[in-house]
Every structure is written in structure tokens, then in C-alpha cells.
């Protein structure tokens, strides 16, 4: 009974880990990775005790390895990089030109 519970729990967390590892939230995947790994280990020891072979352990570990690999890869290689700012730069320029025109009409008191 408990074996089944841990298999289900391990599977669910392993899948969540993979999903999170693919999204930009990759560093949130660490927690489900840990849970899935522990569940996998528990299932492994239970089946060892019962002398049964369970294939699901391999799947859980495989998913854990995939998500852990992705998370580490992203953590190491995805340096903080700003995306395409071309559109923003154009807007900045447009605003500056527009502002200059507006400011021409505004009276500026030097001392205020």
C-alpha cells in the first residue's frame, strides 16, 4: 500500500519537476526534484525488502535526472541577459523628441 503511495507521489512530483525545469521558473524545480528523489529511494528500498522489481523507480529517477540536468544547465548558462530592447529604445527616442517639443512651450522658472 505504502509503496503505491510513494510511487504515485514520486511520479507526480517528478512530472512537476520536469514542467518547472522547462519554464523560466527552473530554480523552483529543486523542491519537487528533492521530493521525487526521496520517494524514488523509498520505493527502491521497499521493493528491495519485498524482493520485487519495480520499473517505475527507473522512470522516476529518469525524470529526476532530466529536470535536475535542465535546472543546473539553466542555472549555469542562463546568465542574466536582457532581452530585445530595440522597441523600448525607439520609444525612448520618440518620447525624447516629443518632450523637447512640449518643453519648448513650457515656461521654466530657473529658481523654482
Amino acid at each position, binding site marked *: 500500500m505504502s509503496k503505491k503511495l510513494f510511487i504515485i507521489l514520486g511520479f507526480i512530483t517528478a512530472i512537476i519537476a520536469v514542467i518547472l525545469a522547462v519554464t523560466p521558473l527552473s530554480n523552483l524545480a529543486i523542491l519537487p526534484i528533492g521530493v521525487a528523489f526521496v520517494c524514488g529511494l523509498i520505493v527502491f528500498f521497499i521493493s528491495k525488502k519485498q524482493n520485487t522489481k519495480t520499473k517505475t523507480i527507473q522512470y522516476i529517477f529518469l525524470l529526476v535526472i532530466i529536470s535536475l540536468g535542465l535546472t543546473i544547465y539553466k542555472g549555469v548558462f542562463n546568465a542574466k541577459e536582457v532581452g530585445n530592447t530595440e522597441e523600448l529604445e525607439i520609444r525612448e527616442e520618440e518620447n525624447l523628441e516629443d518632450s523637447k517639443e512640449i518643453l519648448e512651450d*513650457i515656461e*521654466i522658472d530657473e529658481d523654482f
Partner: protein
Amino acid sequence: MKHFIFACLALISLNNFAQNKTIATGEKLIFTAAYNMSGLLTDIAQVKMETSEVKTSKSTLLRLKCTATTYKKWDNFFKIRDLYESYVNPKTLTPYLYKRDINEGGYYKFMQYKFNHKSNTVKSLKRKKRKDGETWDENKVVNIGASTKDFVSTLYHIRNLDIHKASPGDQQSFKVLFDNKETTIVLKYIGKETISTKIGRKECYKLAISIKGSDVLKGKNDNLLWLTADANKVPVYVKFKIPVGNGELKIESATGLKN
């Protein structure tokens, strides 16, 4: 005693109107904004604060520009390209024109305030995009107080305060025009603290910020600002708590400082 403190604060603030001793032209501050997601701080965006000179035929103004850009990995998720700018008098940091041009995950909004300090009014223009891509404008005239500023120039104005004269516990409030409404921001000086940052270990002034009559900023002393305790008063660290979580802003680099 209350009146005495009020008089002191009023004097201090009057004094501050006089001179800009802190903000230089060509200053560039870069920050990393991080948001707390279930206990893990994730870097989300880069925030830049730049100053430059703008010349018109009659006068010279200081352009205070703040931009926020999400990091590449977030762009497909939630793309932010925000621009906030304020054109101020370089001597007194009094704003004349403020613009807010934001683009957050497809949501577009443009706000423009033209300050008239003689009549204490602001001509505001709000531009929004409809679903079909067409824009619509809304013009309004808003009455403001004599010392009301916009959001960006208030940030710079805070840096220009004589914090070294304040003692822990001192408070000062500022009127800020945001979304055509005047809001009061209360700044409280907590004390000095030495923190390590990307630009070195710095002795800082620790300040608490709160907004009167609004629950955008949560907690009592949970919204904090650290300014270096030198003549530049560079904001090096900001901690904030909002209804949907908490986050922080950390300095990455500071160039072109005045002192």
C-alpha cells in the same frame, strides 16, 4: 513638541528646494529586480536609472529616465518594457514634464503630466490601447499642492535630502501625483547600517517608506530603502512588500556619480 518637529521638517524641506547637490548629469545606475517566489528569489528584470541633459531654445533641463526590462528568459512569459521619465530643473529638481510609457505583458498605458507651478495645476494625458490596437486619449486638469512632484523626481528628490541632519525616527512626507491622484508618501529615517553590495561594502542610511491611506505597500517597516551615507546617496538596496509577494532591488553598477 509636535509643532517644533513639524517646523524643523518644514525648514529642512525648504532648504532642500534650494540646491541639487547630489544628482549629476550622465549618472547611470543599474539594478537587478528580484521577486520572491515561494521562498526563492528569482531575478526578473533590469532596472536602469539614468540622467541626461536636455536643451530647449530657452533653457536646459535634466532628464531623469527610469526603465525596466525583463530578462530574456521571462520575455515569452511576461514581457515588461517600461519607461518612466521626468524633465526637471537641474538646480532644484522641480518637475516640468513627466511621462510614463509602460508595456507590461501586452498591456499598454501612457501617462503624461505637464506641470504648471504658477497655477499649481497639472495637465494630464492618459493614453490607452483598445483591444483592436487603436488608442484613445483622456485629457484632464488636476489641481496639485505646491510641493507635489511626480514619482520619478520624488525618487531623486529623496536622494537630495539632508539625511545626515536627521536623527533616527524622523519622518517626512511627500506628495506624489500618480494615476491623476495625489498620494502622500511617508519616509522615515531608521538609522545607519553597513551592508555589502556589488559596488562594495557601504555605510548606508536605512529608510522606511509607506504610502498613506493605501495598502499597496504592506507591513510597517517592510518597505526599506538603503542610500549610501555619502554625498552621492546612491540607492543600493530596496526591499518591498506588496499584496502579491515581496521582492528586492539590488545595485549592479553605478557610474557618472557627482561626488
